[in-house]
C-alpha cells in the first residue's frame, strides 16, 4: 500500500514536468513498467518491459567474472557502440529477474559498471545467466548473454 502510494506520486511528478525538458528528463521504469520488476523469469521481464520483441544477438559486451567466489558484490560491466535508448540487465539466479534499466541520454555512452548481488548457482545446475537487452534509437532490439558460476550466494545474508 505504502509503495503503491509512493509510485503514484512519482507518476504525478513525471506528468507535472514541463514538456520542454522531456528530451533530457529522467524515466522511472519502476513506475512506468511495474510488472517488469516482479517477473520471475527473464523472458517475462523482457516482455513486461519491451513487449513482444525479437532481439538480435549482437553488439553488446558483458563483462562478468566466469566464476564469482561471492555473490554479495559481483562486478558487472556493459559496453556497447549501439546508439541506445534503453539498456536493461536481467539475471536468472535471483527471485526476480530485472536488475537495472538504464534510460540512456541522447548521445550517451553505454559503458556502465555496477556491483550486483547474485544467488549461488549450485541449486540451478551450476550455471547462471546474465542477459542484457538494448533498445536502439533505430527501433531495433539487441541482446547479449553471459554465463557464470556463483560459488557463494549474496542474497541470503
Amino acid at each position, binding site marked *: 500500500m505504502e509503495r503503491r502510494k509512493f509510485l503514484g506520486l512519482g507518476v504525478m511528478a513525471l506528468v507535472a514536468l514541463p514538456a520542454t525538458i522531456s528530451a*533530457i528528463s529522467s524515466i522511472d521504469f519502476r513506475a512506468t513498467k511495474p510488472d517488469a520488476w516482479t517477473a520471475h523469469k527473464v523472458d517475462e521481464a523482457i516482455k513486461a518491459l519491451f513487449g513482444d520483441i525479437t532481439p538480435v544477438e549482437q553488439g553488446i559486451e558483458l563483462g562478468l567474472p566466469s566464476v564469482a567466489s561471492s555473490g*554479495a558484490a559481483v562486478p558487472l560491466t556493459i559496453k556497447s557502440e549501439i546508439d541506445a535508448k534503453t539498456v536493461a540487465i536481467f539475471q536468472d539466479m535471483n527471485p526476480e529477474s530485472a536488475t537495472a534499466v538504464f534510460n540512456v541520454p541522447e548521445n550517451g555512452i553505454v559503458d556502465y559498471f555496477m556491483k550486483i*548481488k547474485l544467488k549461488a548457482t549450485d541449486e540451478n545446475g551450476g550455471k547462471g545467466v546474465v542477459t542484457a537487452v538494448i533498445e536502439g534509437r533505430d527501433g531495433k532490439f539487441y541482446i547479449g548473454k553471459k554465463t557464470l558460476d556463483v560459488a557463494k550466494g549474496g542474497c541470503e545474508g
Partner: protein
Amino acid sequence: MAKNMKIKAKLKGDIINAKVVAKHDMLTYDQAKAKGKEANFITHITAKVGDAVVYDVSTSQFWSKNPQFKFKFKGAAKGDELAITWTDLLGNTTTESKKIK
C-alpha cells in the same frame, strides 16, 4: 552535510569518467524478512550536470550493499558540478555533487 556518497568525476579527453559509491544497506525482501526489518533499497539514480541528465537508471534490490557504479558521458567541462540523486523504496532521497576534475 551528511556524506551519503563518494563521488569522483574526472575529465579525460572529452569524456568524463564518473565513479560513485552510495551508502545504503540495499536490504532485499528476503534479507529483510530474515532480519525482521523492512525491505529498502535504492530504486532510482539520476546524475545531472546543470539541467542535463547524464545518467539515469531504475535499480533493483539486487545491487550490492553500498552500491558502487561507474559511468561515462560527454558534454561537460572541468569545474562543472556533477549532481547525483538517489531515491529508495521508502521514499528517502539524497543529492550530493562534486566538481569535475
